[in-house]
């Protein structure tokens, strides 16, 4: 597998910068690079999760340790307080990114919500050492405050990566995992009853039905149906139009 590091493509549908990887099939794998916005969004979510988890542990453990409704720390640090309360809370906060990235193979809850994941330059899941290394370099990326160095390198580098990613050879790319296709159309109906382009339009219209206002969806439905049926749809209600579109999608209409 040859990795074309310098190649960038324009994704015509989304406008994101891309990274192209050659594959054994001869068909390039196109990865859409996530920019500083998506990266920051994922970080902010993850930061809140780790703070909440860490504080939650501290509060619950302190209540258990004190045996009453008090979060008061002992005047002199005792081993029990340290091992039960302080240490796990710190470990949760510090190791949250690396543990979640390893366990979720390049994702974290924040990255998942932002629709991004980590991959290597050849599009595969990074190795354990790469996850560890990119997190070690947070020491530099977080300098001087609020990930200043990381943010600046993320803005100025071609693939929008921070120093940790440069060291580990990782990229943050959009996942688009929830994208679906022809979910309203019966593929068996394609062919004699319904051609591909029309099926695409019918599916898109049904998918967006509830987000369109009534006049717009009625107008679009009539236009589509007039192309597949000679009947007059000008007087049909929107409910009737939707029912007819669904019949077309199921292939129940010749």
């Amino acid at each position: 597998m040859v990795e074309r590091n310098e190649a960038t493509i324009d994704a015509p549908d989304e406008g994101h910068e891309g990274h192209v990887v050659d594959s054994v099939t001869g068909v390039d794998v196109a990865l859409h690079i996530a920019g500083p916005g998506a990266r920051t969004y994922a970080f902010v979510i993850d930061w809140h999760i780790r703070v909440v988890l860490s504080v939650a542990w501290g509060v619950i453990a302190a209540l258990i340790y004190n045996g009453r409704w008090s979060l008061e720390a002992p005047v002199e640090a005792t081993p029990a307080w340290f091992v039960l309360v302080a240490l796990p809370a710190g470990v949760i906060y510090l190791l949250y990114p690396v543990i979640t990235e390893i366990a979720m193979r390049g994702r974290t809850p924040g990255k998942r919500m932002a629709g991004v994941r980590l991959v290597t330059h050849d599009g595969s899941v990074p190795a354990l050492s790469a996850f560890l290394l990119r997190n070690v370099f947070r020491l530099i990326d977080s300098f001087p405050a609020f990930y200043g160095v990381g943010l600046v390198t993320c803005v100025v580098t071609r693939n929008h990566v921070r120093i940790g990613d440069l060291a580990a050879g990782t990229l943050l790319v959009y996942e688009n995992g929830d994208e679906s296709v022809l979910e309203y159309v019966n593929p068996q109906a394609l062919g004699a009853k319904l051609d591909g382009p029309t099926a695409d339009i019918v599916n898109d219209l049904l998918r967006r039905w509830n987000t369109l206002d009534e006049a717009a969806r009625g107008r679009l439905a009539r236009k589509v149906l007039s192309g597949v049926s000679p009947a007059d749809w000008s007087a049909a209600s929107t409910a009737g139009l939707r029912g007819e579109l669904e019949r077309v999608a199921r292939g129940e209409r010749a």
Partner: protein
Amino acid sequence: MSESPRERALRTSLLQRSDQWKAAADRARRLSRQGTEDVGDAMRLVDDYRLLAHDLARARRLVPETRARRFLEAAYAQAHATLHKPSTHLGYAVWSLFRDQVPEVVRWLRPHIIWVSLLFVVSVMVGAWMVNTYPDLINLFASPDLIATVERGELWTEGLLNVMPSSVLSVQILTNNIVVSLFAYCAGFLFGLGTFYIVGLNGIMLGAIFAFTRQHGLDDELFRFVLAHGCVELSVMVLSGAAGAAVGEALIRPTLASRGQSFQVAALRTGKLITACVVLLIGCGFIEGYISPNPEFPLWTRAAVGVGYWIFMIALLRGWLFGRSRDHTPIDT
């Protein structure tokens, strides 16, 4: 311009396969999450990969700006990532790391280790000379509290265990040491200058503090305190510095096509040594928390612990602890 009947027929036949794409995408997602030991399942993923590649190539031409194409792009990328996922067997990975990879990195870093050791030794001597010649310079390297304590004829390490328990002290110390060590490594990103600064500063501080305690007749006590943990701790500082220097050198004198690639290869390679350094520093932290501040341990015990742990470090870095021998075969992970 209206499309030809042929194009419409091609688009239709392409979209007729959407159920297969969904099944392929589902399989790729499932196997990415769970993995499989079923050869049939894995082979079906390979077939899916070919199917997705074939249909994606057609979709890019026939339906370039549709959800079908976007779905295929995402499914193909997912199948690609799942197929090219590195196999992970944690036990073999750890065994291979400490038996083959760390010794190889140490051998590769030998010149850097020598140079950084030299830098550290020179820095210690410079620090000692500075404070011996200009005693007031100790204010640059030590806190007022530390200076006042030593001037009273006491070491700041005395009674350390009265302030906090050994377990708490150990964790605080090992955390601090690990952060310093990682920082010395990562600072190599600044073309090696950050690493040299951290190693040099630590050396100067060590030399200055020893010179200062010597002026007050406390150098023997400080030596007693440092002996058990210091042998490995200072060696690890040099190792981290050497790893950082290698990262910096990769940026100054890239050996690959670009500085970025050279930096990445050097960072991934030397990162393995840093794992070993972290493991060693955990041990140092416990020695420094339980043995070093405890006055009940005599000098010979401290020397035995210090030298013994240093020999352990050498054995770890040479891979002997994990069964490495001269005629070894590398472990295939």
